[in-house]
Structures are given as C-alpha cells and as structure tokens.
C-alpha cells in the first residue's frame, strides 16, 4: 500500500489539545477572542495543515503547541507532557514565515545554534550541521552569511536549523509564504522528502489550499473570530509524486477544502 496515508501502527498522540480557548488582553478594552473550544489530536508521524482566513488564530494555535503562549482555558499536551515541559525538553523545532536567521552567524553557525544551547561539543555540532546542510541541499553554502542567500535558501536553512536536533515534532508557520510559486513547489517537494525520510510529526500553517492538500494527511480548516475548527478533512492521495498535482484526487481534495472555507465565510 502507500505509506503516505497510514500513520505508524501504534499511533501515540504527538499533540493533544483539549477544549482550548485563548483570549488576548482579557478584560481590557482591546480584548481579542482568538480561539474558542479547540479540540485537536494529532497522531505521531502525521503531516497536518492548518488553514483559514487571516486572523482566525492559526499562528496562535501553533504557538500554543510550542508553549510560546498559553491557553486561557483548556490544556495542551505535547508528547504526553505539558507543552511547557515539552518546550523545556526541546521536543519540537519551529520555523516561521520570515526565516528568523541570525544575520551575524554563518549558515553553519545558525544551524548549530540549538545544538550549542543544548551543550553539544564543537565536533558533534559541526558533523550534524554538515548532515543538515546536505539534507536541504546547501552543502556549499555553510560558510556564507544569511544575507548572501536567496529567500528560498534562507528558508531551507531555517528548516535545517529546526531539524538539527532531531525533534520529533516540527511546527511551521507559513514557512513558504514569502516565496514565489516555483520555489514554493520545489520547497514543498523537499519538505515532503524530509518528512518521508524522517517520519516527523509536522504541523504546517498555510494560506494556500493546494499547498495544504499536496503536503498533508489531514487539513484542519479554521473559521475566524473566535477561531474554531470548522472542518477536519483527510487527504487520501497516497505517496506524492510529480503527477499528484494534476490528478483527479488532488482536485477533489482541493474542492473539498475550498468548500469548507467558503461555507465558513458565508455563515457570517
């Protein structure tokens, strides 16, 4: 069968979100009800996309999983422990829309940063960084500074950095948002390749329906103000290849996601 659709047999939950609400500036005049009653379980090894209109709380949900912000109500469990503990245990890697590379560090030094914080010695760091550079096909660029790379290359470095310490969970917030269509499709293929090789759990925020469908086992559609889960669509496309983007199944899934989004838009 195709191993793209079947999660690992004894699927432990990578992320369990239980009736989570998030209110920013609670009780102040600028109060924002960003998320309401979110229940979401993500099985280990799956590739899940979060999609929805701007401001519906996708980034907030992702940051809750990373314990970069905390729920007003409900609980977030990552790898069977509190999100905070998972953060302290460095259980996840994160990549953002802007690559967030440190411009004073070379590409290699950027990739080594998490390892340095984890107290790895120099030789180990070097070795892992080289391995990561190979993975994202930037082997010749290790000694360059970020400003010497194109936007797509910078994003690849950011992904290599997020993967460098081999976290089982990868949180990505519109990592390809700033890229042109060509580079974007290329990067999607690369991320899928990495996912197939490593079988990480990936939570991927995007605005692009085709991107969500092409990449994921599961597309979670969100509705705005307050953010809720409007639909949870599984994508049975099997192992992706060059023809996937032109297959009937691909278009069917795109339609399904689009309708879910449109339905959500029309209810307001």
């Amino acid at each position, binding site marked *: 069968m195709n191993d793209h659709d079947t999660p690992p047999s004894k699927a432990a939950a990578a992320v369990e979100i239980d009736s989570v609400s998030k209110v920013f500036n609670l009780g102040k005049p600028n109060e924002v009800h960003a998320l309401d009653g979110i229940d979401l379980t993500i099985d280990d090894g799956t590739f899940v996309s979060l999609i929805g209109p701007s401001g519906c709380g996708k980034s907030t949900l992702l940051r809750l999983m990373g314990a970069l912000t905390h729920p007003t109500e409900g609980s977030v469990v990552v790898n069977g422990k509190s999100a905070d503990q998972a953060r302290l245990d*460095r259980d996840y890697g994160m990549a*953002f829309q*802007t690559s*967030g590379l*440190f411009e*004073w*560090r070379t590409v290699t030094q950027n990739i080594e*940063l998490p390892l340095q914080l984890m107290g790895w010695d120099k030789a180990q760091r070097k070795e892992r960084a080289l391995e990561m550079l190979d993975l994202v096909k930037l082997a010749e660029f290790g000694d360059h500074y970020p400003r010497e790379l194109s936007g797509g290359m910078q994003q690849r470095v950011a992904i290599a950095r997020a993967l460098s310490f081999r976290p089982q969970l990868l949180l990505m917030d519109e990592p390809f948002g700033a890229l042109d269509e060509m580079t974007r499709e290329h990067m999607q293929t690369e991320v899928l390749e990495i996912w197939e090789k490593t079988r990480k759990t990936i939570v991927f925020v995007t605005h692009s329906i085709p991107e969500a469908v092409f990449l994921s086992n599961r597309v979670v559609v969100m509705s705005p103000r307050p953010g809720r889960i409007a639909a949870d669509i599984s994508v049975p496309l099997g192992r992706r290849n060059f023809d996937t983007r032109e297959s009937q199944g691909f278009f069917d899934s795109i339609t399904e996601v689009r309708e879910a989004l449109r339905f959500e838009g029309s209810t307001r």
Partner: protein
Amino acid sequence: MIKRALAGAFPALVIGVGGLVLWELSLLVINPDGFLLPRPTEIFEAFTEHFDAIWSATINTGYIVVTGLIVGVILGVVWSLLVSRFRIADETLTPLAIALNAIPIIALAPIFNAWYGLLSPTSNQAIVVLLVFFPVFINTTKGLTSVGATKIELMDSYAASKWEITRMIRIPNAMPLFFTALKIASSLAVIGAIVAEYFGGSQDTLGQFIVQNAASGRYTNAWAAVVAASAMGITLYLVSGGFERVATPWRPDVDVVG
C-alpha cells in the same frame, strides 16, 4: 586589501588636497596679509616650528581623550546592558541618563576644575566621560532592545535562558549601532577634551596651547594645534571603523563612513 583601501581613499585625497590648494590660492588673492586666516603653508610652517610643543600637548590631550573615551564607553555599555536586562534598572537608570544628558556638560568644566583641582587632568577626563556616555548608552540600548519578535520566540522555543538571549542575540544585534555611537563619541571626545582644557585642568594640552597662542595674537600657531586636534579626531574615527570591521564581519563591506 591595502590597494582597495587606497583606491577608496582616493576621492577623499583629491577633495582634501584640492581644498587646501584652493584655500592657499584664494587667500593669496583676497587676503595676502593673512591676518584672520593663515594660509595652509603658513600653518605648516608653524607646525614644524613648534612641533615639540604641539607634540607633547597632543600626547597629553590624547591621554585625556582616550581614557575619557574608554571610561565613557564602558559606562554607557554597562548602563545599557543593565537597562535592557532589568526592568527596575530601566525605570531608574534611563531617566537618570536622560537627565544627565540634559545638562549642558561643557558648562560643568569650570565647576569640575574646582572639584578636582585646577591643574588636574581629572576634570577634563570627567567632561569627556560625560559627553561620550550618552550617545553610547542611547544607541547601544536601542540595539540591545530592538530584536525582532521572531528571533526571541525562536530562542524561547529552544528554551534559551535570558542570559543566553542577551549574549547570543542582543549583543550581536547591538553591534552596528554601538559602532555608530563609538564613531560619534570619538569625535565628541576630542571636542569635549579641548573645550574643557580651555577652562583649565591639565596644562601643556592642545586646548591650553590654542587659548594661549590666540590670546597673544599668534593665530597661526593656534591653527597648527587645531590641525593636530583634527588629526587626532580622524585617527580615532578610523580606529573605530577598523574595530567595527573586525567585530562585525557579517556586514557588507561598506566604507568607513558606513
């Protein structure tokens, strides 16, 4: 590298030499007596004639400038590290820094002379320290605190400590602004030292040399000392630029002006 530096300096050389020639020639035409403004060749003569006196005055003033600059820079950097790290420091030390800066510092020179003794260099150094402190403090603080939210979140996602964030993110982020401040401060230090010397403090300094020669009408000598002071300012500026290049290798190669 040296060749490139020379090539980079070429336009400046042309302007400098051209300006001197123009200065010389126009004065020869409009003001041959050289009463108000001496010609460059006259200044050069005075410079060679009084070289020993100017040299030792330059050494003494240079000592005041460099020590004052170092102490002022350290003070500014430590102050901004405290302010950017601890809220309580921000709430107390920032207003204090702003208040200090509101004082017309040069006006303190005669007062400092009374405090530290009329002939002591300490009063001059104190003026330099105060002048240098503020631009260093303001710029470094800006650099330490203006780190993009994404970068801080990334560090949080790696469970980095506050100190690791300061050391690995805030300090490198502040480097470019710190060096901008250092360049401003190095010029301010020379100005501050010389004006302070007008009022007393250390003897045998450029400030004193200028005051005494001007008082007795020997303006050409005063100009020769001004040239020495300018050379000191330029040297400090170039040295700051050199440190900047070494300390921030990730930045594109820009001229010293950058």
